[in-house]
């Protein structure tokens, strides 16, 4: 592996950057130095200001909106907007993907940047260049495929291809692997290393510290809007624990809280559940059978697209696809879950993996969002009791440590991880018996992850059943009492905690053979 040149010239220097939002000081005198040709990671807890810093750098918050100085390639840069920073070769890929689902790969790659002959768009050239760019990021797809028809992992690669359609010198990736499974993530990180050999500098933000450790040359750590330190990965002998110490300001001896499960009897059972894709004839869930005991944390492992989310959502009031058959039993009696409100009444809760698109109303404030799944709990005869609502929200703010000045704030102003906590609070508030968590720690920092694991355990201790869908095997192994593996819509096996190891799970996740 070619090592970056230690004496490489400084490409970018951000000095004393301060950025305030009404009510929050997101960045306070932050400094960042990035050398040419390195992979520079930015770590920090949720709300530490990572995304904000990158938005300052890329002109999302234009010059004048922040104080401090940006020096880029030796001169002061004052970007008025994103276009200005792109012209200078800085391309950012945001935490939220910015692709248009109804457009093709080619159209998305060249959106706003279309090759032309005269006034007309030159689609031939566009297609050809799209293929080149896709090859560059290691993607084999028909360039006419619509974005909505490909998985998140590939979408992420398309975003990068899109960045390369411009003349990129500095590539910024804000949590690029949050939604990716392991192999997709690995592919993406390899890509970054490739870019390094081509002299392209990258800045990467991620909460997956193992990836950071593996790929980064330098790590800058932010905490509460301040620069804490910059670590040189080789020189300082950095490992995950070292990064965590910088992020949270102390050592964390374990990633999972201590906990002794107290498991009761089976109270929730699904039999022969079969679901068809909403449009095509494909079966996304095939004769699924599984059960959950009281006080048990049950994991679902599987590759992206294995049908775990589809299974969960179809159980949750048939919110996905066409139900073809199957029964659900709760406490021995068959229950009907034909609508979401029926599911909620029967004590189900589904915390979606995609909080922005389907988990939250981003126009709402925090307190309204928290009571949204069961507003009746804070209402008398349909009239909301503002005091009760406020108190409920306030108690979750404290319990989950949602970082906000007040529960009256809009959820759109929260950092990604804190939004996730709001979604979690919303479903905890609905008093479920069975809580289905779909990728509950996606985009969440180590400290908050630990807290969320603690909350999951607490819910289990209260005798609730918890189902966790996760693409991170270590998380499932550390958290769950039992893990089902899913492959292409079929539940292929069941592993209890004591026997769970990554190899075994991986094998079951990639085979059609039933093993248990």
């Amino acid at each position: 592996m070619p090592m970056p040149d230690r004496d490489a010239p400084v490409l970018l220097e951000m000095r004393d950057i301060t950025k305030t939002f009404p009510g929050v000081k997101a960045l306070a005198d932050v400094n960042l130095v990035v050398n040419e040709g390195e992979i520079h990671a930015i770590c920090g807890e949720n709300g530490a200001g990572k995304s904000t810093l990158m938005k300052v750098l890329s002109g999302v918050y234009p010059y004048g909106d922040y104080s401090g100085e940006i020096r880029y390639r030796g001169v002061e840069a004052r970007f008025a907007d994103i276009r200005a920073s792109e012209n200078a070769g800085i391309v950012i890929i945001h935490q939220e993907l910015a692709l248009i689902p109804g457009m093709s790969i080619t159209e998305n790659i060249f959106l706003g940047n279309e090759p032309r002959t005269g006034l007309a768009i030159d689609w031939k050239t566009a297609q050809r260049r799209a293929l080149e760019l896709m090859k560059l990021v290691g993607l084999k797809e028909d360039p006419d495929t619509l974005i909505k028809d490909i998985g998140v992992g590939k979408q992420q690669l398309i975003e990068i291809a899109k960045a390369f359609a411009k003349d990129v010198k500095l590539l910024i990736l804000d949590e690029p692997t949050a939604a990716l499974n392991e192999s997709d993530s690995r592919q993406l990180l390899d890509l970054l290393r490739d870019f390094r050999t081509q002299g392209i500098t990258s800045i990467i933000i991620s909460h997956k510290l193992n990836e950071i450790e593996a790929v980064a040359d330098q790590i800058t750590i932010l905490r509460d809007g301040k620069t804490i330190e910059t670590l040189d990965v080789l020189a300082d002998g950095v490992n995950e624990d070292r990064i965590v110490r910088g992020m949270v300001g102390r050592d964390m001896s374990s990633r999972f809280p201590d906990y002794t499960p107290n498991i009761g009897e089976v109270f929730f059972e699904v039999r022969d559940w079969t679901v068809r894709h909403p449009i095509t004839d494909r079966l996304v869930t095939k004769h699924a059978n599984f059960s959950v005991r009281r006080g048990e944390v049950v994991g679902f492992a599987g590759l992206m697209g294995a049908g775990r989310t589809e299974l969960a959502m179809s159980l949750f009031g048939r919110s996905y696809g066409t139900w073809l058959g199957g029964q659900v039993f709760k406490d021995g009696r068959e229950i009907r879950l034909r609508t979401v409100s029926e599911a909620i009444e029967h004590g189900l809760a589904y915390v979606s993996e995609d909080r922005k698109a389907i988990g939250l109303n981003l126009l709402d404030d925090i307190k309204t969002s928290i009571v949204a799944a069961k507003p009746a709990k804070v209402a008398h005869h349909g009239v909301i009791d503002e005091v009760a609502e406020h108190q409920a929200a306030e108690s979750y703010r404290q319990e989950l440590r949602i970082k906000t000045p007040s529960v009256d704030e809009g959820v759109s102003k929260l950092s990604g991880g804190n939004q996730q906590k709001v979604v979690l609070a919303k479903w905890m508030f609905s008093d479920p018996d069975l809580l289905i968590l779909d990728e509950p720690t996606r985009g969440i920092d180590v400290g908050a992850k630990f807290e969320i694991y603690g909350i999951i355990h607490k819910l289990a201790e209260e005798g609730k059943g918890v189902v966790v869908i996760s693409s991170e095997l270590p998380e499932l192994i550390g958290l769950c009492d039992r893990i089902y593996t899913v492959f292409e819509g079929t539940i292929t096996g069941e592993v209890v905690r004591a026997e769970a190891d990554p190899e075994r799970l991986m094998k079951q996740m990639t085979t059609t053979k039933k093993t248990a």
Partner: protein
Amino acid sequence: MSGLQDLKKNLFGGTTTVGRQFGMIFTLVAIVLLFEVLTDGLTLTSGNLIAVVSQYSYILILAIGMLMVIVAGHIDLSVGSVAAFVGIVVAKSIAHFGIPWPLGIVLGLVVGALIGAWQGFWVAYVGVPAFIVTLAGMLLFRGGNQFIGNADTVPVPEGFRTIGAGYLPEVGPATGYNNLTLLLGLIGCLAVAWREWQSRKTRQEMGAAPAPLWISGLRLAVMVGVIVFATLRFAGGRVGTSLPVSGIILIGLVLIYSFYTRNTVSGRRIYAVGGNARAAELSGVKLQRVNFFVMCNMGILAALAGMIFVARSAASGPQDGLSWELDAIAAVFIGGAAVSGGLGTVSGSIVGGLVMALLNNGLQLMGVGVDLVQMIKGLVLLLAVAIDVYNKSQGRFSIIDSLTRPFRRAEVPAAVPAADAPRQNDKTPAAS
């Protein structure tokens, strides 16, 4: 916090949404004062204020329904036609079939509800965009009006006219004022005081410090002042006039719908659906029901507006309700609602409607021609929404915020929010 921020933040209750109305009301007051000067004091005379209310109350009633439709993420282009259709149905029924007029009103509301249900069915259950459904409705009911009325005008009886042209009766001692209007004003003052006290209590129960007393006092004084002023104006007009009946209906509706949209579970669902339909659905909200309800409700309010207009002009005609939908939609957007749904308040829309009404009225008083008035109104709408859109693109909210922006500079606390503080001390295993 400095006194000024305190004031701004607390004058209208302290939350961000309510804080926004501060700017709205500020705009309204500015317009009133501007025209008061430009028209040499004609704007705030009793006669003119009474005329404004009776001339625009039906538009404002439409704006209430339109606000809910727009918040849910739809639009209704048919309200003018629906109003005209209901007007002619009611007028005909009374004139030709001898139905007593109170029954006529009930009939009108039922017809409005049926029309609303018809459009709601297409929007909610078939999934045709409301723009199309109501465009069709616009043609359908405009034609229906002419079909039933033969393009003639049909007069309505005296009793029926009360809802559009009626005033409160003169009762009690001769005070030189309309006594019932005075009474209403008094009730208004008491209600405002009670609400202020309630809101202090609520904040206390939430564990938040209530606004400093002087602010409560000032806020109360301003509101009572406005109410007293308005009461005296409306009560002190020509003998036999008062706050128009249509104005009282409007006030009643504003109170009911404000409460409904802000404080009830089902009212909130409208915002949830408009803000993120899929998220609302996954929270157990029945989308179809909400969509059906807002369209149906719009039909009822359009019917009411149509009847008030017919009552005011004493007859129903083929030109009734022409381009009302545009006025109502404009009011809602000037009042700060988002084009994409999910945002907006009843009171904001009412203030937006009043801005339009006073603009119209002031320009007319100044003798500006209808052509110019239209052009100015068009530009005002464009400008108001443009400022809104611009501000949102800057990550700020709404026109109103921009007006009050100079006040909020120093609001940023130096430290990071408090929920963090207990971070060190608990379950997380800490070793260092």
